C-alpha cells in the first residue's frame, strides 16, 4: 500500500494531559508525527491540534478512528481541500546582504523580523513545499540557525 502524507486537525477538550494522550497514542501504535502544532481555540474550552503524518490508507484510517476514540476528542478533520501554511525563522550573519535577504523573503510571503548588531532574523510563512524551497534558496546567505514551526491548515470552504 502507498504511503501518503496527510494533514489532520483534531479539536479536543482542553484538559489535563490531553496532549499526552494523543502523542502517547501515536507512540504506542507506531504512527508517525512529522509536525504538530497546538493552541487553544479562542473563546472556548477547546484546543486545536494540527498534525502532519504519514502512512498507507489503512494506517491513516486507523489514526483517524483512534484519535476519535479518545474521550476528550470532539472532532477529527481529515483535510482534503485546505489551505496549509508553515512558518520558518532564519538567522543570518550581519555581514550578508540585507537587501538581497529581504528580497528573497518577500518572494516567499515574508520579511525581516529583526536586525541586531550581529544578526539578521527573517520570518516566512508559506506552503510547506515553498518553505522548503525558501530554505534551500537562503543557504547562500549562510544561515546560522533555522527554526521551523509545524503546519497549520484550514478547509477552503
Amino acid at each position, binding site marked *: 500500500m502507498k504511503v501518503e502524507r496527510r494533514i489532520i486537525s483534531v479539536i*479536543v*477538550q482542553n484538559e*489535563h*494531559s490531553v496532549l*499526552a*494522550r494523543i502523542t*502517547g497514542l501515536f507512540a*504506542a501504535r507506531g504512527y508517525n508525527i512529522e509536525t504538530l502544532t497546538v493552541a487553544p481555540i479562542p473563546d472556548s474550552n477547546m484546543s486545536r491540534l494540527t498534525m502532519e503524518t504519514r502512512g498507507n490508507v*489503512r494506517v491513516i*484510517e*486507523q489514526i483517524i*478512528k*483512534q484519535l*476519535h*476514540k479518545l*474521550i*476528550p*476528542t*470532539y472532532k477529527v478533520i481529515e483535510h482534503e481541500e485546505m489551505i496549509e501554511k508553515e512558518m520558518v525563522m532564519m538567522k543570518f550573519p550581519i555581514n550578508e546582504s540585507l537587501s538581497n535577504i529581504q528580497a528573497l523573503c518577500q518572494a516567499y510571503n515574508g520579511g525581516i523580523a529583526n536586525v541586531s548588531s550581529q544578526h539578521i532574523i527573517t520570518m516566512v510563512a508559506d506552503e510547506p513545499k515553498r518553505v522548503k524551497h525558501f530554505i534551500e534558496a537562503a543557504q547562500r546567505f549562510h544561515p546560522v540557525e533555522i527554526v521551523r514551526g509545524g503546519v497549520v491548515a484550514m478547509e477552503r470552504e
Partner: protein
Amino acid sequence: MEMTGAQMVIEAMKLEGVDTVFGYPGGAIMNVYDEIYKQHDFKHILTRHEQAAVHAAEGYARATGKVGVAFVTSGPGFTNAVTGLATAYMDSIPLVVISGQVPITLIGTDAFQEIDATGISRSCTKHNYLVRSAKELPLILKEAFFIASSGRPGPVHVDIPKDVTAELAWFDYPTRVDIPTYRPTTKGNVRQIKKASEAICNAKRPVFYLGGGVIHSNSADLVRKFVEITQIPAVETLMARGTLRHDNPLLLGMVGMHGTYQANMAMSETDLMIALGPRFDDRVTGKLSEFAKHAKIIHVDIDPSSIGKLVDVDYPIVGDLKEVLEVMITKVKEHIDPDRYQSWREILKRYNEIHPLKYEDSDKVLKPQWVIERVGELLGEDAVITTDVGQHQMWTAQFYPFTYPRQLITSGGLGTMGFGFPAAMGVKRSRPEKISVNFTGDGSILMNIQELVTAVESRLPVINIILNNHYLGMVRQWQTFFYDKRYAETDLSFQPDFVRLAEACGGIGYRVETKEEFDEALKDAVEKKVVAMIDVIIDREENVLPMVPSGGTLYNMMLEFKE
C-alpha cells in the same frame, strides 16, 4: 451536601449501586478507607494483592455485566493493579479502579510512593482521571461509571490525591451525564443493515463469526434466534463461548489457533462472514493474507476502530449489536430460505466427521480433557467456569459443555496467568448461587496463590482444579513442536504440596490421580462449600490439538503431533 472527597467516593458507590469493592489500603487512600469503615452500604473484600483485587472486580464484572470496582493505594499499590487494568482493557471489561495519590502539593516531587499513575494507565484504560479538587469529584465519578459501561466497555482509572480526599466540597451527584466529546453510535446505519441482510439471503456458504461483543452487548438471545431462523452455522471465539449451547447442531465450535477443524474450514471456505462483535485477533485469523480469502465480510461492532483494522470489510456496521440485530433479523426473516445452505452445512458436517475434536483417554493416567468433560457432566450449568492461561485454558474452552453466555470467564486478549483464582472469587461474590470453578495450571495458580487467604476469610468457596502437568505446559508444547524439545525453564517438577498449602490457609486440599479419586474429591468439595484445591495429576506430555501454528493458515491445521 458538603462533605470530604473521601465521603464523596463512598456516596458515589452507593448511588451507583455498588455492592462490592475489592481492594487493599495504604497511606494515600487511608481517608477513603476510614470512610469505608464507617459505612454499611457495600462490602469491601480485602484481597492479599492488588492485582487480585482488580481481577476479582473483573470476575464480578464479567459474570454479570455490571461495573466492577477496586480500590488501591498510590505507588506500589497502583503498579500492582496495572496488570488487572491491562487484562480488563484487552477484553473490554467495565471497571472503575480508584487509586490514592500523594497530595497535590507533593505531585512531581518524587514523593514517597509517588508514581505517575495516570501516565502509566493511559495506555491500558479506556479513560483515566487525575482529580484536581474535591469539587470535580462527583462529575468525574459519574463519568467514570458511565464511560466504563457504555459504548465499548472498558476500565476507567481515577487517581485521587490524598489532600483531595480530605478536602470539603459540595456534593451533588449528577443523575445523568452528557459528554459532548463522547457519544458512541448505537444505532446501526439502516441502509447498510439492509444491504448486509440481502447479502446474507443471497450467500451460498455463510458463517457467523461470533466474538466477545455478543457477550458484552447481552445479545446472545438474539444471536440464538438469528442462527435458528437462518440455519447458518456459527463459530465462536474464546470470548464468545457459551453464546450458543454446546449441543446446538449449528455450532461448529471454537475458531482459531486451537479451534475445531470444521470451524476453521468454515472460516476459510465461506463466501460471507457475518462477524458479530469479534476483533479479528491474530490468534483467530492466522495468516491475514489467507484469511477468509473468498469471502465478503459483514462486521458489526460498536467500536469503529475495530472495523477494517486488520481485514477489509465489505459491510461495515457501527452500532450496538443488540440494536443492529433487532433490525437485521426482521429484514432477513422476510427473505431467508434456510434450505439454500443445506449443502454447505453438509460439507461442514463431513469436515467434522473426518477430524472431530478428540483426545485419547487412558486408564493409566488422567487426561485433562476427561477431567474437564467430567466436571461438565457433574456440574454442567450449575458451574461458572474461570480459567488461568495455558493448555488448561484451551482444553477448557474446547471441552467444557457451555450452555449460556458468561459461563466461561477467561483472560483472552492479554492472556494473564494468575487471573483465574481471583476472578473466580469475583464470580462467586456476584453469583453466589453458582458453583465457582477455576480450571488452572500448576504454573498459573502460584501467580495469585495468596488469594487462598482472601477466599477463606471472605467465604468465597472457589473450587480450584489444578490440571497439574508439572510444566509450564503451553510453553513446553511450543518447545516440543518448534524448539526440538529444548525445555528451557518450563519444567515445574519442583512443586509445593498443594494439599497442605490449601490447608495452611484454611481451605481443603485433594490430590487425585484416578477418575474415582477425582469424582470423590469434586463431590466432597461441592458438598462442603469450602475453598478447595484439587491437585489433579495429569498426563505430562498431553498437547493441545488441533493447532494452527502462529502465522499459519486456518485451513492448514496441525491435527496431530508426530515425533
